[in-house]
């Protein structure tokens, strides 16, 4: 078998990688037809004939299939992380309205209110389409949330001490550049 032309196929992969599996298969089918035309053409340059061999095109196809599967797996992981962090931030918001009533003092209500603001910041950050701004929002929101739980002035501080770092972890993973 002829050597696999890395530079040629890396260019081809770059183009094909952005297409859907159906379009890619259609192009690979055309590439096979292209090779057959080149093989039948005495004026074709040997490079076209060599690199276009059907099995080599199929090799690109196999590689791209694995790339697509990995991309799908990554998208699934991202979706579940997004759901987890959204649920977590929403729970913090809802419970921050309920918890202060257990303590019943002014500090609890103030810290509960501040926690709501930070949780909203985190939630917006998680869904922000621009990663740079998203990272800042997640970072400031979750760090603020952790700080709210630090002084242990309220009975529910440990809740923020757990949710803050967890939101930071999931949010930063989502907004990775």
């Amino acid at each position, binding site marked *: 078998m002829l050597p696999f032309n890395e530079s040629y196929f890396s260019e*081809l992969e770059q183009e094909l990688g952005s297409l859907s599996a159906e379009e890619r298969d*259609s*192009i690979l*089918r*055309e590439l096979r037809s*292209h090779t057959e035309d080149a093989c039948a053409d005495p004026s074709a340059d040997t490079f076209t004939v060599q690199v276009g061999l059907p099995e080599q095109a199929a090799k690109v196809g196999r590689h791209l299939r694995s790339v697509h599967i990995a991309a799908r797996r990554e998208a699934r992981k991202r979706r579940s992380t997004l759901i987890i962090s959204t649920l977590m931030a929403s729970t913090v918001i809802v419970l921050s309205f309920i918890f202060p009533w257990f303590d019943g003092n002014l500090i609890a209500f103030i810290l509960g209110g501040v926690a709501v603001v930070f949780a909203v910041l985190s939630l917006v950050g998680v869904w922000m389409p621009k990663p740079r701004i998203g990272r800042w929002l997640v970072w400031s929101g979750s760090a603020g949330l952790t700080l709210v739980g630090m002084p242990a002035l309220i009975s529910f501080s440990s809740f923020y001490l757990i949710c803050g770092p967890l939101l930071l972890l999931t949010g930063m993973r989502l907004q990775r550049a």
Partner: protein
Amino acid sequence: MFERELLKGSLGLMLMALIEQGPMYGYQIAKLIRTHTNDVIDLKEGSLYPALHRMEKEGMIEGFWQRRDDGVDRRYYRLSAEGQRILDERRAQWNRFSAAVSKVVSDAPIQ
């Protein structure tokens, strides 16, 4: 050869201008471009087929499979009505643009 961006900008126009002459398949298009340009532009399959598919998706050309005499399938492309309209528009634009650029970059001194 040429910078990638330079070819990318004019690839669609070249493909449509060729397909305007009648239904053509990929290998034929690549070969015609090579011969028409005296081997100056040698289009790789990795650029040609994704470009054809993009144009098909945008409705400029229509693709269809046809069986050759030897039983092997070949995908032909023909220009759509919308493609013809875009080609006429882009051809006129290109002629004006290339003439203007040539005037500026040619060796002739500017008066």
